[in-house]
């Protein structure tokens, strides 16, 4: 499972000459960072990292916020027809993006949002919050009623109960949602590919995917690209491993 990553890391630090002489399986003779540096400059990788972080970070926060508002009305407010409302959110999340992509592309051109990071942020905020609403609603549905009633008797209105009682108590679930929204958005491909055409707005995923399609790189630069693409994901993974496993189990059986 991790073997491909190791092979990639080995070859990312070889020089092209060394690669063609010894092939992909030999150990590198020294650390040769030109491939990494060339690739970084060629695609302006720092910029792509910034775009990905900006888009994923904004989506994570905004989608969590929207999920909390929705789930508060469904899980605690128990609004009428909530099984239907909930089913709607799940189906919205399951919808293939192909069924949205052309109208989204067309409409965003009409309103002048095409090829902006904002357009992608808006769309993914809504798509991710569909899952968040579903998960949080079932968590908040089991929220102890006495706590809410106590706060109400103390004179808090619904808005205050939400921010001072419900949100602080649901922090663990919100943490899971933030991590998942961030990583999912980071990895998204189709919509960013269609929406972000200019180099300055592209994400890491799109930049690498487009480059891959062109097949302009030599083997060492390909490996450098792969290594630079793997590293951020690897870091999230190390930092959030516990949250991730907890979240998957929660998402699957909740």
């Amino acid at each position, binding site marked *: 499972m991790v073997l491909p990553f190791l092979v990639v890391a080995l070859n990312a630090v070889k020089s092209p000459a060394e690669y063609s002489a010894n092939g992909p399986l030999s150990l590198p003779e020294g650390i040769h960072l030109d491939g990494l540096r060339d690739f970084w400059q060629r695609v302006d990788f720092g910029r792509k990292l910034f775009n990905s972080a900006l888009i994923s970070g904004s989506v994570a926060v905004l989608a969590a916020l929207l999920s909390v508002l*929705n789930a508060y009305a469904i899980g605690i407010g128990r609004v009428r027809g909530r099984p239907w409302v909930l089913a709607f959110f799940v189906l919205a999340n399951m919808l293939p993006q*192909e069924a*949205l992509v052309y109208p989204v592309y067309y409409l965003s051109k009409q309103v002048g949002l095409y090829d902006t990071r904002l357009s992608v942020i808006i769309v993914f905020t809504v798509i991710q919050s569909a899952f968040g609403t579903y998960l949080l609603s079932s968590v908040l549905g089991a929220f102890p009623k006495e706590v809410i009633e106590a706060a109400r008797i103390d004179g808090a209105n619904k808005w205050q109960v939400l921010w001072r009682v419900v949100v602080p108590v649901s922090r663990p679930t919100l943490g899971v949602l933030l991590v998942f929204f961030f990583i999912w958005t980071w990895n998204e491909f189709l919509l960013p590919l269609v929406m972000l055409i200019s180099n300055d707005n592209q994400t*890491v*995923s799109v930049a690498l995917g487009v480059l891959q399609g062109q097949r302009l790189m030599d083997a060492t630069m390909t490996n450098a690209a792969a290594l630079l693409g*793997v590293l951020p994901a690897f870091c999230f993974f190390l930092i959030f491993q516990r949250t991730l496993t907890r979240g998957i189990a929660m998402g699957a059986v909740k």
Partner: protein
Amino acid sequence: MSTHSPGVPDSHAVQGRRREYPYALFLLPGALAFLAVIVVPFLMNTGISLTHWQGVGSPKWAGLDNYRALLDDSAFWESFRHSLAMVVAMAVLPTALGLVLAAALFDYIAKHIGTRTASVLRACFYLPQVLPIAVAGIVWSWILAPEGGALNEALDAVGLGSLRHDWLGDPDFALYSVMAVMVWVQLGFPLVVFMAGLQRADPSLHEAAELDGASWWRRFWHVTLPQIRPEISVVLLWCTIAALKVFGAVYVLTKGGPGGATNVPSYFSFQSFFEKTQVGYGSAVSTALTVIILALALVALRLQTRAEDR
């Protein structure tokens, strides 16, 4: 909830808690956003599927023409058959392998070698799941490359050079190669869910079966499997839906090629939209795909509600 029964004096009315807004108001921002981003585009897509349109000019009404054309389009049916191959690669095989691996990690490695080793191994299997598919695509298209690719070089190195192939470029192999990559990508998800399920299961049953002399395989089949049946059905359905939606992997690995050998409906609709500018036709493909996926999602939802009621 927000109304007070008239007989009970409301001691807090003085604090300004008179007519309070209903909870439904909290749904308002979400509802508006969903209308703009999901509902309207989805309805537009369905509407466009009933027209001939190239993306510019005004669409011409076509009724069900696009759908009729779809039924006769062998390229579409081929892409659909590849979808079934993806279901095997992304749902069936990962679930089956995930079950065996989860059971092995849970009752063999964790017990005899250590829980730490088991969770490190679990993490290794899960790693491809957090990787952007574009990156996985770069890694694998280099490994599977015909010249200088790691797999062919490795075959040469161990004296199996006769097995060299253009793994992604040969129409007879491309689909299997993509399938193999997808198994690698997908395996971690069932594994993590099943291991969490096994933690919930009652260990005494397992111990009793072991005392009765049941073999590992019999215990797996008669004790482990029935206990995590809800997880199995949920994972199978979620993975099937993911398999039907697969796009990025096909885009970065093969672009549907060679000669359509790895095309799938989602990539087929993308091509119709942005390469062939047959927007009406592409919308019909994506609408058909949506109907299938939503039907499966409804089944998944029912299963999940049942799992919760347990």
